[in-house]
């Protein structure tokens, strides 16, 4: 919706953004060619998870926090189990750790495929949604759904179901898969890997609007692996910390136009989490075969144009399929499905890499294992300010576009981040206002 509100003022607004997870809006006010205000508004009603976690048992955190987001529940479960295990001085290694990585591969594949094909691709090809796109590009949409299904197959096999896995617990799982379960899964993933490679080749040929800002990328970094659940929190500038030092380095700010808190790096400001950050900071940790594919399609070693995030997401799907196959090929059922985790009074942090980026949990529990305090920093609240900066920069360079086109491109700019508003609320509505003159 565009509205002339003064002689040279113009507002572009979208009251309810589509193809994002949750309820958000965009408001942009232009005075001639000058962008006066940009707000990514989040009106998703808050559900107060941090409050309702108080007094619950430490064992309940994975299942409860999963309900923050139906698109990335495994990420919530993983950040919760790792934080609680750190609190209790337990480290889950070996095959159980590998199974957790496998489950996480499932979520990355399903969530990235959903975003690439059903949410983001329609912007590039000029359709309102994937169903419209399927009329002209049936094979493309079918390929996306088939790839998404591979991720869901992993989550069903390891987690029990696609949304809100029931098989995750502190210390490991309730039941671990048999060799035969894994063999069946292997065939599906191998087929998925070819589809994923095709996805990278297809995505690399799309038309990308130009946009580059001087971002600070933040992601986990592990000495030997592309990151999931472990590693230090590092950035493209000078950051290199244990997640327990989070509060010294980051803060969350509340703004009037959002039910989501904005996270910023103390003394520096907005930063960027997600697939591009992970890739830019961990490209050396990809499999040689994944990196070779990146080179084949001409994906730069440091991706700075957020519109190109669709290629990076596709590349991460390739990596996740390869990682899943590696885990399955080495799999032998562990002697027990979980190791014991006994409570003790402690405060602990954990960060894992959700499909959309870093997801930080902090809990304080007492000696009986009751949660005294909980704090959750989801990826979208970390990216929110960066998205607003992108919008400002993009519009400044594209004021010549017709209003309807400009609005759509602004929506696409937001969707570059695959924002998950359900997560951030603890988060989004789009409006553009143009003023001409003073």
């Amino acid at each position, binding site marked *: 919706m565009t509205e002339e509100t003064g002689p040279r003022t113009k507002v572009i607004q979208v009251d*309810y953004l*589509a*193809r994002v*997870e*949750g309820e958000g809006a965009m408001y942009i006010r232009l005075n001639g060619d000058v962008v006066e205000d940009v707000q990514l508004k989040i009106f998703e*009603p*808050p*559900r*107060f*998870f*941090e*409050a*309702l976690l*108080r*007094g*619950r*048992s430490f064992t*309940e955190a994975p*299942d*409860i926090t999963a*309900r923050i*987001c*139906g*698109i990335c*529940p495994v990420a919530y479960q993983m950040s919760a189990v790792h934080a609680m295990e750190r609190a209790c001085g337990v480290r889950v290694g070996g095959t159980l750790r590998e199974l957790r990585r496998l489950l996480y591969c499932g979520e990355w594949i399903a969530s990235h495929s959903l975003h690439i094909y059903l949410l983001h691709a*329609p912007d590039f090809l000029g359709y*309102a*949604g*994937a*169903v*419209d796109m*399927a009329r002209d590009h*049936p094979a493309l*949409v*079918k390929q996306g*759904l*088939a790839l*998404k*299904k591979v991720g*869901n197959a992993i989550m069903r096999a390891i987690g*029990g*179901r*696609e*949304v*809100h896995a*029931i*098989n995750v*617990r502190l210390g490991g799982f*309730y*039941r671990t898969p048999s060799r035969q379960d894994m063999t069946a899964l292997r065939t599906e993933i191998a087929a998925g890997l070819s589809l994923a490679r095709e996805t990278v080749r297809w995505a690399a040929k799309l038309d990308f609007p130009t946009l580059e800002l001087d971002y600070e990328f933040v992601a986990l970094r592990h000495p030997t692996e592309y990151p999931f659940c472990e590693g230090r929190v590092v950035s493209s500038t000078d950051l290199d910390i244990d997640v327990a030092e989070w509060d010294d380095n980051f803060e969350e700010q*509340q*703004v*009037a136009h959002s*039910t989501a*808190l904005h996270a910023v790096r103390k003394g520096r400001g907005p930063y960027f989490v997600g697939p591009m950050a992970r890739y830019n900071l961990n490209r050396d940790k990809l499999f040689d075969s994944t990196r070779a594919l990146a080179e084949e399609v001409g994906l730069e070693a440091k991706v700075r144009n957020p519109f190109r995030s669709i290629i990076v997401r596709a590349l991460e799907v390739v990596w996740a399929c390869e990682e899943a196959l590696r885990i399955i090929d080495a799999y032998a059922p562990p002697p027990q499905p979980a190791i014991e985790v006994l409570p003790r009074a402690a405060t602990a942090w954990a960060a894992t890499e959700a499909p959309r980026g870093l997801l930080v949990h902090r809990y304080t529990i007492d000696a*009986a294992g*009751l949660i005294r305090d909980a704090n959750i920093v989801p990826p979208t609240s970390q990216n929110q300010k960066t998205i607003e900066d992108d919008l400002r920069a993009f519009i400044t360079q594209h004021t010549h576009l017709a209003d309807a086109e400009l609005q759509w491109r602004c*929506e696409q700019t937001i969707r570059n981040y695959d924002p998950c508003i*359900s997560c951030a609320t*603890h988060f989004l509505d789009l409006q553009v206002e143009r003023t001409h003159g003073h």
Partner: protein
Amino acid sequence: MTTRLKLAVWKFASCDGCQLQILDCEDELLVLAEVVDIAYFKEATRHEDPGPYDLSLVEGSITTAHDAERIRQVRAQSRILVTIGACATSGGIQALKNFDDVAVYKSIVYATPAYVSSLATSTPIADHVTVDYAIPGCPIDKTMLLRFLSALLAGRKPDIPTHTACVACKHSGVACLMVRGIPCMGPVTRAGCDALCPKFARGCFGCFGPSETANVDALIAQWREMGVDEATIMRAFHTFQAWAPPFRQVGDVVKSQTSPSRGASQGQGRQGHD
């Protein structure tokens, strides 16, 4: 040309997991899009057709005055209104605040609580408008959703199971976990997931909500015999389906003789039960 069923999908306070189950129908989605006209579905498309709609699927609970008004407008535009999932059907996990003080909740999450408008309660859709059908689950099961839609399209009365998870469990030939000393909510939980948790050696935690004739007292007695403490019993009933009767009333059965089950931290006057 035959007219297709005009479908709208609405979101209120929720995690998006139930509407994602629609997109998770990978094999059926495109076929579905041929037989129904997806007229409004913000998560899937920026295209929207104005009402009225033949069928509205509603995810999420009512937690703001604005949403209480919005659901009335949705109802006014919908021939058939169906709630999908625990949030819409019984208030969801966010209904835990119904037992507590929302001012305390806001101050825990937000530094300036005044910016945040929120009702004191999270209530099911049926508290506000007439609901034609309710599909249970946290999340809903996609097979049940597809069966429901096929029945509607064929003009049959949709069949939503009302029996207990135990029935499904026995059908699947799973050995009862309670016999092995693992507490299970199967006896009071409605079927629909095909006894998923017991198949994974995990006690059911009731995410499909109470079955029609749930005998909560009997299950609590059994759990006590197994040595489950009061606080754990309280928490078990007061999670994803806390506001669904008779789970809601469990606080009256479980006495706060032990440490309060939840919420008493820092003496903020929060009670474990209503």
